């Protein structure tokens, strides 16, 4: 890296550039993210403590918060590759998630008749790792199929194709015809409207057991890390201090931590993708595809790569998200989830990877989980009050200056109001900060700093007249 020009005309620009948000300046992206997360957790804990939320519930809430932050940040990152970098308008995200988790289910559910839920259709009984790889590949493949015809068309047609595809996926999952059948001796199916019971090994347990393999060789025990360390020491150890079995809470926390690690992996992967000649071509396609093509880049190939990678990541997110829920039903995968992820990306700022993570975190903490948490806290404090059942009953007492029923009604309908809140935030954001929190920022698409090379500088300061 060279010095800046004497007159300071060329500012240095690298990853450690100071960033400011909400009027506060941070030395770099990492500290800003950390500050944001710490503030969020502090707010949650203060709210919980002040109102007197039970500790166990609070801890569980924080674990869930982490789960949602990681998931939405990952989703926003994957969408950012498609929309922020390449300008591909994917509004069928949820379809790729559904594909991921359903394919994983089919591959990894126990064979028919051997599982815990004998009445249900079975799977192929493959290890969960194989199932996850299969699910990710299937989501990528679906993305490829969607991209092939659609990428030749204008951006809005891709949008139509993707949302249609996500609905096709959902209706296929609902279909009676596909709900059960026998393929090559296996009783398989998508389960129709009843969905599928995900009776494969819990992902967390599967992961810890996989990590345990080297220890198993040494100790000669099966799943040493899981049975001895995780259950034997951690869970049993903590249960000494708490009434009741803490395993579910610890599981939530451990799984959330795993998700944070995977989020880190996503970030590194997508940052490297973005800050490279590959990412540069993607950005160029977003700006003007014809020009990029005229400069000798096979734009279709770049677009397909970007789209397929994004879709495969979305498939993985689907598996991580729904794979721990015990069961899946097709109607979970409504377009609403797709739009949540879009909101997260818009908050953070399309085109910025750090912004995507922040947008995901802010969306998860304050728009998605926040209102539910508030409802939870308030209802706990008030001792599960009975709210009025209709709007009229809620509003009428206001005339006699009694706002309690209206308040309770509002709290009771938090899940619906959440959408209103999201809408309001979007409108304010569009008005005040259309680029999102970090979208205005320059994230230069290059793997090296773009400062003027030292050998070249003398030429410039002499007006380019001297020879080298």
């Amino acid at each position: 890296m060279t010095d800046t020009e004497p007159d300071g005309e060329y500012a240095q620009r690298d990853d450690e550039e100071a960033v400011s948000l909400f009027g506060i300046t941070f030395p770099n992206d990492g500290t800003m993210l950390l500050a944001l997360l710490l503030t969020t957790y502090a707010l949650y804990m203060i709210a919980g403590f002040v109102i007197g939320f039970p500790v166990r519930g609070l801890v569980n809430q924080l674990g869930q918060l982490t789960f949602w932050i990681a998931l939405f940040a990952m989703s926003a990152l994957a969408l950012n590759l498609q929309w922020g970098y390449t300008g591909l308008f994917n509004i069928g995200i949820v379809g790729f998630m559904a594909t991921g988790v359903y394919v994983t289910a089919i591959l990894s559910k126990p064979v028919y008749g051997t599982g815990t839920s004998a009445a249900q259709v079975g799977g192929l009984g493959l290890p969960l790792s194989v199932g996850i790889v299969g699910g990710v590949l299937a989501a990528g493949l679906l993305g490829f199929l969607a991209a092939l015809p659609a990428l030749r068309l204008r951006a809005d047609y891709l949008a139509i194709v993707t949302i249609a595809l996500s609905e096709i996926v959902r209706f296929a999952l609902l279909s009676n015809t596909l709900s059960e059948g026998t393929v090559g001796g296996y009783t398989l199916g998508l389960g129709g409207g009843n969905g599928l019971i995900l009776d494969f090994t819990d992902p967390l347990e599967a992961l810890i057991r996989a990590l345990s393999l080297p220890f198993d060789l040494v100790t000669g025990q099966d799943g040493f890390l899981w049975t001895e360390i995780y259950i034997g020491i951690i869970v049993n150890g903590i249960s000494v201090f708490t009434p009741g079995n803490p395993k579910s809470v610890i599981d939530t926390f451990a799984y959330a931590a795993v998700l944070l690690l995977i989020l880190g992996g996503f970030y590194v992967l997508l940052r490297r993708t973005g800050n490279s000649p590959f990412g540069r071509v993607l950005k160029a396609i977003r700006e003007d595809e014809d020009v990029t093509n005229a400069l000798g880049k096979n734009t279709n190939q770049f677009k397909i790569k970007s789209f397929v990678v994004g879709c495969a990541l979305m498939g993985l997110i689907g598996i991580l998200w729904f794979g721990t829920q015990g069961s899946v039903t097709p109607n979970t995968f409504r377009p609403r989830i797709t739009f949540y992820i879009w909101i997260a990306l818009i908050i953070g700022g399309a085109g910025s990877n750090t912004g995507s993570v922040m947008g995901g975190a802010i969306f998860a903490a304050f728009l998605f989980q926040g209102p539910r948490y508030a409802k939870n806290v308030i209802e706990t404090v008030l001792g599960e009050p009975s709210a009025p059942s209709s709007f009229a009953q809620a509003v009428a007492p206001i005339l006699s200056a009694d706002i309690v029923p209206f308040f309770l009604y509002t709290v009771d309908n938090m899940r619906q109001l959440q959408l209103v809140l999201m809408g309001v935030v979007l409108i304010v954001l569009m008005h005040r900060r259309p680029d999102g929190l970090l979208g205005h920022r320059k994230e230069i698409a290059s793997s090296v700093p773009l400062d003027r090379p030292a050998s070249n500088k003398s030429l410039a300061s002499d007006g380019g007249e001297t020879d080298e």
Partner: protein
Amino acid sequence: MSEAESRSEPAHTGTDEELETNRGTADVNEIPLWVRNLRKTFGGITAVDDAGFEVERGTMTGLIGPNGAGKSTTFNCITGVHTPDSGVVEFNGTDITGLEPYEVANRGLVRTFQIARELSEMTVLENMLVAPKNQRGEKLWRSVLAREDVNQQEYELVERAWETLDFFDIDHLAEEYAGNLSGGQRKLLELARALLTDPDMLLLDEPFAGVNPTLEERLLEHIHDLRDQGYTFLIVEHDMDLIMQNCSKVIVMHQGNILTEGTPDQVRNNEQVIEAYLGGEV
């Protein structure tokens, strides 16, 4: 402009070996671009009708004609934006008819656009760095896994980009968003960017439209410099005087046909040209 000369090896090294092509007499080393019987219709309208011409290496050739003469369509047929209904476009001895624009560009025939199309939300340097061909880091896996390999080439490309910006005297704008540039600066950027693809020949679509006289002078100077270095230019232009003063050969199109071609003097005195192009006023 010494730095541009030291930038890379000369654009062209004439080889003595004769390339056999189906064009018969013409020598590839002298005639890089060769268009025959080009025809393109849109619905019922024939935009280009049996057009054919040659462009000599190391020259500036002008393509002029009144509105609707088929200049832009010819341009688009050559660069792969349109596929001609019939006819042949040969570049450096290979048939490039109907290839995709990126394939044409990768063969060394690079175009600029009538309205300068910068990549506005990218910096000038990023704009430049999109252009170089066969970048290692354009492979996704390499960008993610083999950063050292990619970085090494990136440093070279950054240096070349700065040198080219120096040559065009827009290095002070390097870190500006391209969208903030003035119309003339965008034209310079577009030409600079096209050069970074290592082209043999440049097709400029109205490079002087909307450019102020001072910048026009500079742009012309650069083009002349580049031509002296061995680059070949085909320029579509509205401004007849500009073409007449700067090009060694002028091709006149009218109603999809090649009306005539020759030196500026020959064209200027051609009755048909005066009639068609100037509406008989002169």
